């Protein structure tokens, strides 16, 4: 390609003869590797090479980071696997040239350095990163159903050894600069004030490039690889079904077969990624990625920004919400009736901070942001008040009456109720329009989704503020209508209840759960019910039963009245020892052909009903909510997407059949005919 105008890249030569190649992608705040930016990068490198400098430093001018990765939209919408492979082969050539430069080359990393961005950095001789927590390095491609395609599968194991490299690429997790330095992924982690100096000194001193330790080198040996590959596959299989998620297995095979021949491995890497990217799993995971972006965008409709949060109710939900807010940097007051009620929440908060923040000084700072507040001193200064007390209309209304006159006029009043209509709760308020639902899921620290519940009385601007707040604490807002069960519980409940019915019919719980996990659910419905607590399931089911014509299985009632509440009581559908269910082996046991369908179609049918009632605004948001709220098989792209890709008519036929066989609870919702 001819030398294009320098829209994205810029080279400067300093007095020492060092070339500084700045990446500053036009018209965006984040650098990504697209067809265009790669072409220009290529041209810049050729130009630099034609007049060799003392050294080359590649750096970003963006505040957000170095390079966030490849341009996902452009890459995943390529017409064919051949085109995708060709694109990657092109990048291989460029990076191989960069790697072979005779002068020292440095990647200077500050902020995000992910996917293709890290692969580019792996092609320079040295890497220096800012030790600030904002720096994250990783190869998260696997989360999109693919694997690194710009030579990362070759260079990462070579640089740090297979165990570290494979762990990074298979889990997709990112590393801090310090952790990256520790494993040898980068040469130095330095404070911002030393970044430029470190780059210049590396070029002046030109030490030998990093080599992994003996053990790490051994891990790549042709005799070791098959053994290690077998072990890796076994480990991965615990988390990802090969039928559902082919990418990690493809990656292990690629390394195992071709590591000794880099040139071949580059070719095979491109071929493998190209084959994966056009596959269903990757396409659906990529869709989920964009759904997530869509939810994030919903939080940008309003510029609401909170500094102080007051949470009333220090139970499991309230306490954990308060801790999460403090973790995300907010000043939090946590109110309950007595210190004894708040103390367990402080313990859980401390455990959370320790796990997430690690450094004692950061843990202390987070604890200092979380103030137990029996007297409710935090109300007056709070920007957001989250009510998370027990589900009782009168108690909640009394609380609102006491809170409203003390609140700042601009403060958000939110409730974590999962069953009481906002229209009813807000009757206690002078200004009913200010009440909005913030429905978190348990465990708060792991469930990304928050349902933003808009009652009929809730103003749109308040709902938008609540969504912005959800984003501020790094949760995904899903706007839903205030109707029984909102979206997630409503869709989940018929599925759970069908599982209970199956169990009462004599199907072993292990088989029921296996059917669900084989489908791609993260946990089977029986174990899920036990985990949530059968009393809670029953309460939710009964609330929903009234309005949704769901029948509550008798078995559930009898178990709750017998005190078998699930994991917390040590016995539910399973018996628990040390918090783990005792499951019998399922191998060899036969499964009824319609087992999975019975559970899934109850869920799909309810999803149809939700769409018809406009509980959420679109198919996409429904899919997003169900995936992030229930863990619904992400590689299937969500319930609606699953119906569409499986063929609407054949799915309709199936539910008709189930309805004929099992009766009313499978009666197809009217929306099946309309869509």
């Amino acid at each position, binding site marked *: 390609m001819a030398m294009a105008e320098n829209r994205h890249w810029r080279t400067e030569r300093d007095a020492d003869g060092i070339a500084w190649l700045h990446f500053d992608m036009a018209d965006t705040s984040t650098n990504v590797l697209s067809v265009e930016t790669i072409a220009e990068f290529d041209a810049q490198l050729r130009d630099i090479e034609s007049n060799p400098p003392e050294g080359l430093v590649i750096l970003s001018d963006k505040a957000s980071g170095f390079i966030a990765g490849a341009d996902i939209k452009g890459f995943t919408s390529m017409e064919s696997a051949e085109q995708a492979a060709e694109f990657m082969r092109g990048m291989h050539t460029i990076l191989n040239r960069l790697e072979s430069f005779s002068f020292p080359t440095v990647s200077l990393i500050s902020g995000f350095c992910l996917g293709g961005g890290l692969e580019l950095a792996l092609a320079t001789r040295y890497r220096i990163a800012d030790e600030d927590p904002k720096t994250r390095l990783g190869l998260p491609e696997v989360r999109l159903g693919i694997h690194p395609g710009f030579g990362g599968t070759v260079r990462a194991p070579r640089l740090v050894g297979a165990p570290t490299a494979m762990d990074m690429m298979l889990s997709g997790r990112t590393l801090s600069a310090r952790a990256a330095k520790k494993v040898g992924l980068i040469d130095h982690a330095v404070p911002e004030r030393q970044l430029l100096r470190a780059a210049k000194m590396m070029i002046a001193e030109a030490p030998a490039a990093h080599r992994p330790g003996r053990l790490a080198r051994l891990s790549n040996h042709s005799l070791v690889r098959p053994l290690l590959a077998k072990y890796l596959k076994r480990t991965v299989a615990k988390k990802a079904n090969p039928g559902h998620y082919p990418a990690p297995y493809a990656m292990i095979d690629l390394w195992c077969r071709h590591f000794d021949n880099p040139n071949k491995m580059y070719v095979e890497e491109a071929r493998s990624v190209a084959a994966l990217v056009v596959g269903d799993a990757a396409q659906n995971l990529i869709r989920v990625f964009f759904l997530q972006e869509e939810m994030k965008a919903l939080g940008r409709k309003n510029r609401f920004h909170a500094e102080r949060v007051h949470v009333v109710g220090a139970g499991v939900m309230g306490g954990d919400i308060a801790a999460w807010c403090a973790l995300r940097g907010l*000043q939090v*007051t946590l109110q309950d009736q007595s*210190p*004894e009620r*708040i*103390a*367990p929440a*402080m*313990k859980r908060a*401390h*455990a959370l901070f320790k796990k997430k923040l690690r450094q004692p000084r950061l843990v*202390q*700072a987070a*604890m*200092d*942001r979380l*103030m*137990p*507040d*029996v*007297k409710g*001193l*935090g109300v007056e*200064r709070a920007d957001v008040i989250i009510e998370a007390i027990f589900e009782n209309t009168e108690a909640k209304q009394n609380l609102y009456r006491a809170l409203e006159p003390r609140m700042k006029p601009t403060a958000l009043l939110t409730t974590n109720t999962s069953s009481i209509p906002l229209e009813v709760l807000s009757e206690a308020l002078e200004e009913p329009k200010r009440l909005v639902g913030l429905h978190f899921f348990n465990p708060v620290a792991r469930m990304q989704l928050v349902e933003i519940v808009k009652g009929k009385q809730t103003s749109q601007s308040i709902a938008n503020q609540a969504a912005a707040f959800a984003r501020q604490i790094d949760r995904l807002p899903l706007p839903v209508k205030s109707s029984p069960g909102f979206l997630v519980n409503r869709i989940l409940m018929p599925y759970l209840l069908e599982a209970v019915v199956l169990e009462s019919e004599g199907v072993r719980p292990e088989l029921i759960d296996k059917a669900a996990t084989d489908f791609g659910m993260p946990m089977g419905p029986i174990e899920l019910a036990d985990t949530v607590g059968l009393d809670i399931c029953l309460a939710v089911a009964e609330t929903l039963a009234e309005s949704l014509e769901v029948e509550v299985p008798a078995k559930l009632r009898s178990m709750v009245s017998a005190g078998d509440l699930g994991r917390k009581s040590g016995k539910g559908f399973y018996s628990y020892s040390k918090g783990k269910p005792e499951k019998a082996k399922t191998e060899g046991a036969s499964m009824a052909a319609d087992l999975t369908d019975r559970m899934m179609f109850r869920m799909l049918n309810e999803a149809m009903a939700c769409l018809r009632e406009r509980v959420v605004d679109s198919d996409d948001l429904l899919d997003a909510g169900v995936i992030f709220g229930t863990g619904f098989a992400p590689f299937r792209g969500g319930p609606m997407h699953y119906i569409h890709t499986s063929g609407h008519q054949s799915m309709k036929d199936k539910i008709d059949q189930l309805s004929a066989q099992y009766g009313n609870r499978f009666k197809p919702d009217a929306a099946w005919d309309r869509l």
Partner: protein
Amino acid sequence: MATRKKKKAGGAVYIVDGSRTPFLKVTGTPGPFLASDLAVAASRPLLARQPFEISALDEVIVGCVMPTPDEVNIARIIALRLGCDQHLPAWTVQRNCASGLQALDCAYQNIKDGRSDLVLAGGAESMSHAPVLLNDKMVGWLGEWTGAKKLAQKIKTLGKLRGVHLKPIIGLLRGLSDPVIGLSMGQTAENLAYRFGISREAMDAFAVDSHKRLAAAQEGGYFNDEIEALYDSRGKSYQQDNGVRADSSVEKLAKLRPVFDRKFGKVTAGNSAQITDGAAMLLLASEYAVEKYGLKVMGRIIDSEWAGLDPAQMGLGPAHAMAPILKRQKMAVSDIDYWEINEAFATQVLACVEAWQDAEYCKNELGLKEPPGKIDHTRLNIDGGGVSLGHPVGASGARIVLHLLNILERNDAQHGMASLCIGGGQGGAMLVTREKG
């Protein structure tokens, strides 16, 4: 900060609010809280209930005797942990057992001088975290070890290590001893018992009273507005001073052995202050700040005094510090409604009471023509003291002033005197009133 270009000097100085933690008895192992944790826990709710923003503060002053090595200038650490602005100055004061009172006195002086309008001041001590140090021999050995570069040298250095190197220095014990005169604080208390002929029975009876009074005060809910609960990271909350023994009796205390002058002494663990962790934090304000923010006032500081005396008689410090205040304010003992004299030792408080009735002592040691007279036991430490609820050295001074103001309000009384004896031979005192200035 309360923005005034030039602040007015000479106005009244008010104490507007205060909070403290429960005082937690040290059990021999490091407690759940550092001194800064305690001060933060006391201060957060205190600041949260104020009508002004935290940015209105002019400075933070904290008394602390033995912070951990990570808490140097602990006041600044506390201020930053509370979320105070980085521009807010904070400083730590140390006058042994009266460090908390010293912090209040510094705040009082700065407000009086017009340098500050709003000050967060108090004291904090985690005696259970008092440092345990390496002795000089060990430090010397470590230096040699670090200097040894070669393996042979290392082995040789290792061979020099002896048991004596490992003998630690217990910071707490050293802190409670006077290095100049070579006596422990308990031994100075024995001196007072000897000088004023205070019997073991009298001390023990005083100690029993202290416990009964504290138990009654807890029962009466007299600390409800004063104490803020503590929460540890293991899911436990602490809401009351836990050193109290409601069932304490002279008979039980009589069984304890003397610990400082072993065998023949009278001072026991039972009639001495308990070793505890705790913090007390107060808000002091100028007249200007009180008006500007419409603050409710607990009381006003009238006067303060510091005095020095024979280190071997350090327990008489209050007698020396309180006398000049009465003289200056032209007040008699009967003009003071309630007294808080910190109970470092039962015998030491009793000795102070004796000294003020001893004409010879008053003439020779205090330069008074007439002894001030007897302090009524029913107006002295009426809700217990160091013997029953403990004496976290840096915090006690702030605690007794805070509690004195609560006693005055509860009894609708006007004048109160708070005083402490100070290791090394000093006394500190502060006179407060609920009357408007």
